[in-house]
């Protein structure tokens, strides 16, 4: 199958109106807000060195914060703000999706606009500003008739830089719940769907180029005082906005939103649940690629209606518990605790996706390692890799304490690359996931945990507070409960990690339903 006949291009294209529309809307709104704040600030501070210096320093600091972190920081910030407005004024707003993404991106756009604005205005020959005053212009007229037109090329260069930055960085707004072209990239990276990754990158690059060229057209129109040119540029931007608004207008907003975290299993499960809801005649959409710290809050706030989480994760992160209980007991206690927040724990899916220490089967056999306790004797000469959060999680501390693990080196890795790394001997042991299909594919083995240092991680289905009494929803999801055993989920995950048309989350979800639907 050639690259060009790959059906995944078609699938990618079918998402384009939604992803591109959301991307354009959040980028242009952020840019507009950034300009509305930065341009007046640049004008106000152009002749005041002290505030100007402070402002530029602040904008530079913002710029040094990595885009992903800046976007992620706005979520808890807005959650806090929302709870404050709720307490003081009785109104709340969603801290999820559009708002945090727009605010963070607007902040991100400020530096080039401010710096070029100030540079452009300060670079004007003082004799001309004097001349403006001398012919009888007020300060405002001088600004509008002389200073701004003369600073325009430099200012526009800054605005164009900001536009390109914002459009590029907007791809990172997917994990905080804002649909964007980043959905292609996040989903593609997680499911090793390089067609999606490529599609997302090319689409956002083309969008950035198009907006840059349209702004360039406006600039040259203003400079040459050609209404046609600036009109065409403005028309182009307006058309872009209009084109992205149309598809959303027609979409009903009453549907169920199925959340998914940023890994393949979650993409598959959210597609499965969406299919089940649609089969029951309910309209539903998946909101994928949500950060694991964002998704629970989004459910609690009703921004998403349902998603699958894992009992041990909530146990540690939401209940802040460090003790470990047997599977059933832990889920029961969790259910009671979540009910206090009006969140429904509908039930377990049947499999567990726990952390487990994983190493090649052959190597383990050679060393005589079957359990983590056996591993402890060799750990001083071995290296271990885990995902970005593993080494800061309580499980790791518990494992170390229980077995006295002391590795030669530890590394953090993108989860999908860990398995290949341990199979090739790049690292000796990884902290993998028990439901991962790659364990079988690479002939790895998950070591037993006889002291039960790692808590259980049952996959559990959660419903938002406002869906607690929703009988149709619950009826549609019931057939999934208890039906997905670990072997089936591993096979599904293995399929999803493939790099062909049958490995898309949608296709794997259909396969999964065929397997479990009749059970």
């Amino acid at each position, binding site marked *: 199958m050639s690259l060009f006949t790959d059906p995944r291009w078609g699938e990618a294209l079918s998402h384009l109106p939604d992803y591109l529309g959301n991307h354009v809307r959040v980028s242009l709104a952020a840019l507009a807000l950034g300009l509305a704040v930065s341009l007046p600030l640049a004008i106000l501070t152009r002749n005041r060195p002290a505030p100007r210096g402070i402002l530029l320093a602040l904008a530079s600091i913002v710029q040094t914060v990595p885009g992903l972190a800046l976007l992620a920081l706005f979520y808890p910030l807005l959650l806090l703000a929302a709870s404050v407005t709720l307490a003081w004024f009785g109104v709340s707003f969603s801290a999820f999706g559009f708002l945090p993404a727009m605010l963070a991106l607007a902040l991100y756009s400020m530096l080039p606009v401010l710096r070029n604005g100030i540079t452009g205005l300060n670079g004007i020959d003082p*004799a*001309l500003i*004097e*001349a*403006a*005053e*001398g*012919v*009888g*212009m*007020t300060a405002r*007229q001088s600004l509008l*008739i*002389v200073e701004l*037109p*003369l600073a325009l090329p430099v200012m526009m260069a800054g605005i164009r830089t900001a536009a390109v930055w914002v459009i590029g960085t907007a791809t990172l707004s997917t994990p905080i719940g804002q649909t964007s072209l980043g959905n292609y990239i996040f989903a593609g990276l997680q499911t090793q769907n390089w067609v999606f990754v490529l599609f997302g990158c090319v689409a956002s690059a083309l969008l950035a180029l198009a907006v840059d060229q349209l702004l360039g057209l406006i600039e040259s129109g203003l*400079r040459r005082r050609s209404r046609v040119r600036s009109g065409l540029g403005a028309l182009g931007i307006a058309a872009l906005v209009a084109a992205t608004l149309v598809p959303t207008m027609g979409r009903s907003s009453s549907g169920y939103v199925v959340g998914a975290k940023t890994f393949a299993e979650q993409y598959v499960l959210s597609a499965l649940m969406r299919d089940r809801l649609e089969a029951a005649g309910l309209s539903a959409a998946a909101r994928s690629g949500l950060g694991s710290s964002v998704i629970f809050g989004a459910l609690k706030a009703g921004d998403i209606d349902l998603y699958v989480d894992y009992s041990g994760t909530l146990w540690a992160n939401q209940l802040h518990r460090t003790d470990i209980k047997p599977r059933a007991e832990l889920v029961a206690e969790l259910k009671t605790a979540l009910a206090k927040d009006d969140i429904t724990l509908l039930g377990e899916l049947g499999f567990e996706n726990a952390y487990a220490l994983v190493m090649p089967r052959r190597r383990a056999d050679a060393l005589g390692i079957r359990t983590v306790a056996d591993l402890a004797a060799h750990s001083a000469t071995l290296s271990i890799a885990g995902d970005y959060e593993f080494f800061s999680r309580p499980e790791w501390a518990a494992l170390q304490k229980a077995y006295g693990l002391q590795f030669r080196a530890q590394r953090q890795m993108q989860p999908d690359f860990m398995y290949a790394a341990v199979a090739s001997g790049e690292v000796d042991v990884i902290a993998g996931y028990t439901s991962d299909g790659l364990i079988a594919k690479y002939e790895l083995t998950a070591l037993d945990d006889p002291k039960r240092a790692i808590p259980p991680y049952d996959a559990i289905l959660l419903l938002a507070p406002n869906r607690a009494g929703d009988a149709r929803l619950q009826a549609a999801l019931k057939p999934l409960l208890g039906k997905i055993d670990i072997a089936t989920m591993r096979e599904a995950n293995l399929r999803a990690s493939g790099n062909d048309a049958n490995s898309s989350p949608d296709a794997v979800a259909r396969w999964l339903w065929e397997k479990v639907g009749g059970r």
Partner: protein
Amino acid sequence: MSSKLAISYQHVTKRFGSLAAVDNVSLDIAEGEFVAVVGGSGSGKTTLLRLANRLIEADSGTITVEGEDVRNVDPVALRRRVGYVFQSGGLFPHLSVADNIGITPKLLGEPAAAVAGRVDELLELVQLDRATHRDRLPEALSGGERQRVGVARALAARPRIVLMDEPFGALDPLTRDALGDDYRALHRKLGLTTVMITHDMTEAILLADRIAVMRGGRLLAQGTAAELSSSSDDYVLELLRTPRRQVERLNALLPMGGAA
């Protein structure tokens, strides 16, 4: 002086930090007069000029323009009714010749058609060809043409007073001579009061009715060229010696009645 005063400085002082740029200067300029203010760099002559239309505010003393204390006049309105010609033109590079000339009438709210008509009149007045120059940008003009546009712009709102800050300083001698003569003719024809800053005593003597000499912020002397020549101040006499020496040497070097 029997005629009315156009501009009057009474004991005017302006300091920049510890430096007195203008130090207790009193000077009267009558209506219709052409006064040249002569001095070296740092003499305070440009500051003196800018005090008249409040581009700079005086620290002490009184300045009146057409009988009114400038402190009681809105500075923007004041500048719109006093023409100002800047050193090296001060033309707005992004505006056409016509838009540069018409700027003050436009600011005063005159209708576009009236402004356009006035621009054509002024182009003729400063002897620029309407068809070739009207829509050009300043960068496409020669130095002399730019300064003619600068003069036209200063005259656009029909001021009775024109302030000129070394208007012809950066021009080649022939252009400078022609422009000086042309402006002098305009001054007479339109009945203007003109105050011109220059560091060139020869130019001052040839164009102005009266000359004020400044040094270190103070007004050393004022009067016609003939009156100044009887001054007791060494600096004033030194300034006057230069053109005289030049004339003597030129007379010696150039054969009389020649083509020049």
